């Protein structure tokens, strides 16, 4: 299916939730609301014409305008089509619904997005830091992150 058709199917099922899309970009994307990611994800995985069963990647992004975002890259092994979804949330209250029940691989990817950006994934089974230590101050990949001077007695900068 082409990106247009996928967008039409999503609009047909979810109405105004999946309206904004940029279909002429290098890799077309569709914006979805952050509180409906699991329902939309489950529909994308189970609908017979879409069947997105393979989540290629889940990344967090800091858009530097007060918004954080999560970008989902999905692929269907059966129909061989791809789609990119974007979910934005404000930086001071970043909550996105977790999709770890839909795709098992999202579990660790969401933990990494939480670790690096501080995005809270609601209904995630085990949301804790995965790469940085548990008591590390701050969220490193945010654009306004300052490297701590000392961590547990060790000097961090060069």
């Amino acid at each position, binding site marked *: 299916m082409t990106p247009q058709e996928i967008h039409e199917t999503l609009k047909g099922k979810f109405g105004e939730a999946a309206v904004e899309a940029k279909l002429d970009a290098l890799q077309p994307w569709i914006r979805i609301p952050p509180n409906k990611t699991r329902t939309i994800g489950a529909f994308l995985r189970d609908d017979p014409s879409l069947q997105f069963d393979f989540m290629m990647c889940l990344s967090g992004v800091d858009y530097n305008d007060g918004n954080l975002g999560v970008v989902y890259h999905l692929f269907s092994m059966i129909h061989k089509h791809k789609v990119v979804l974007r979910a934005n949330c404000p930086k001071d209250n970043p909550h996105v619904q977790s999709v770890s029940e839909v795709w098992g691989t999202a579990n660790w990817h969401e933990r990494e997005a939480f670790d690096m950006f501080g995005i809270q994934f609601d209904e995630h089974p085990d949301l804790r830091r995965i*790469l*940085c*230590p548990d008591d*590390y101050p701050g969220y*490193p990949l945010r654009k306004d*992150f300052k*490297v*701590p001077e000392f*961590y*547990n007695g*060790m*000097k*961090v*900068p*060069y």
Partner: protein
Amino acid sequence: MGLLDYKFENSNVFITSLENLLNWARLSSLFQMQFGLACCAIEMMAASASNFDIMRFGVIPRATPRQTDVMIVAGTVTLKMASRIKRLYDQMAEPRYVISMGSCSNCGGPYWEHGYHVLKGVDRVIPVDVYVPGCPPRPEALLEGIMKLQEKVRKESLAKKKQTA
């Protein structure tokens, strides 16, 4: 001919100082702790394999720190790993030595500028005897580092109190 062959050419007695004997025994059998962290660990493994063969120097990898003399810190030390390295160093029995292999454990390596989770040099947590530069150092460079450590051990004196950190 090896050292023992020279000495035992004509008789089976040789006279030396206790220091020389102990130092010679220690430097010829430096047991190494298998402690590869990152890319330098692959070059350390290549040094133990048959092309470069570190075992002819007497260096055998042992898994537990209690049985080792030298810890070759090969790879980037991160903040999360630093406390474990300190604990492993404390578990080694004296006399113990540390070789810092590779640019990352010498001084932070390519991650010195923006690494928020990289410890800029393992000498911030444990004392280091020999630094081997390179990214990654060739196995021959690691062998030279072992030889430099052997020179250092050869010059050790029993009279001086061993410095611990």
